[in-house]
């Protein structure tokens, strides 16, 4: 049975997930033109490779991985890496809030994360994906994804506490 997708199907599937691709790319660079450049490069690379895709039913996951790789390449090329440890920007902490998402604007916090870690926050917090699906996008075991996610959250929490203490 032939499970390969045709060029027309590729075009339809890309069209169906284009907004998700753009948001994903935008989170890495926070700039319209650069996000469009990443989407363009990801689409180009996917066009050249879609015939070799083993599981067309996971097209969105496959595309997500390509967008992440293109975003990381873009950042490496432009050397716009800023790490959490070096961050001088304080997160806005809210009183009486419980969850990290309530206490901290994770959309801004993304900029202070290692680029390799940003996808985990985007997929889990913004895209509401299950760890199992995230593992598919990130090409890593589910348990590794969980470990990384909780490690990043802990890192963000510690940073938030440090900022709150510093502010006293």
């Amino acid at each position, binding site marked *: 049975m032939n499970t390969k997708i045709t060029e027309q199907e590729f075009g339809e599937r890309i069209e169906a997930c284009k907004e998700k691709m753009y948001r994903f790319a935008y989170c890495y660079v926070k700039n319209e033109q650069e996000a469009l450049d990443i989407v363009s*490069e990801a689409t180009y690379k996917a066009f*050249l490779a879609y015939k070799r895709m083993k599981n067309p039913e996971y097209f969105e996951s496959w595309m997500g991985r390509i967008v992440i790789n293109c975003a990381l390449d873009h950042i490496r090329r432009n050397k716009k890496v800023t790490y959490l440890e070096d961050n001088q920007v304080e997160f806005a902490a809210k009183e009486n809030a419980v969850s990290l998402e309530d206490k901290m604007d994770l959309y801004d916090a993304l900029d202070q994360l290692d680029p390799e870690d940003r996808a985990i926050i985007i997929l889990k917090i913004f895209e509401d994906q299950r760890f199992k699906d995230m593992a598919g996008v990130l090409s890593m075991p589910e348990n590794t994804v969980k470990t990384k996610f909780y490690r990043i959250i802990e890192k963000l929490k510690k940073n938030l506490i440090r900022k709150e203490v510093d502010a006293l």
Partner: protein
Amino acid sequence: MTGKERYDNIEIPARLSEVIQQAQQRGRMEKRRRNVLRRSTLTAACAAAIMITVNVPNVAMALSDVPVIGSIVKVLQIGSGGQRTDGVSVTTTTEENTLSINFSLNGEQTSSAPAYTVDYKAAPDRLIFSFYGVRNLDYMKLQEDIKGLSNVKDVYNNVILDDSAFRFVVELKENIGYSVSEYQQPGYIQLKLFGAKKPEQAHDVYYVRSQAMEQGESIAVLDEQYAADDSSVIKTKQGKFIVAMGGFKTREEAEQHLQKLSTREDYFEPLHVDHWMSNASPE
């Protein structure tokens, strides 16, 4: 507003679709370029073998009896040429056993031929023409013109996964020689057919082949998958199409090739070994 709300509210630019379309077009052009390169490499590698099995015409034969318009770029048996372009229209004209394939863009003849490849395959003797960057083509007229040449047995097109490319197959009668000439100012390609001097004895040829299918995308996908293995699409005696690789002298060689293909990760369409006479079409 939470981070997730800010994420959901990221404004989508109006030109996102346009950017995606352009990226796909860029991919299409790159694929075409790679196809031309790949086919040129393959054909160059087996050119020596083909030269032995086909009666090679000389340039004088290619040009004789034909009024020449424009300057000749090359005369070839197999290979590639032309310039990268897009949206070229294709028309054909014939004169005895000579076919001219003409190209125009916006109503004017182009100065050079678009990117093309010419392949020769045996069992049955076939010429496979591929043109890239062409969109408007009167296939019925082309088919009618080519069938009108007395040394041609059949003509059929191959579906390929590139809507700006076109491929057709000219099946030759037995012991027919040919030459392909590319011209510029204006750009056109001329196919000349003539009787070969040394008739070849028909013999059994072994192939790794797919099942027979109707013309369509499934067979095109399969052909593209095995393009690097020198695959080609052949019309069967019943008018269906198969993807075939080889032209092996023995069944063992074909079996070995099939074994190698079947261990690949992307092997999904069952293939099998078959044989037919070098001057016949498969079942």
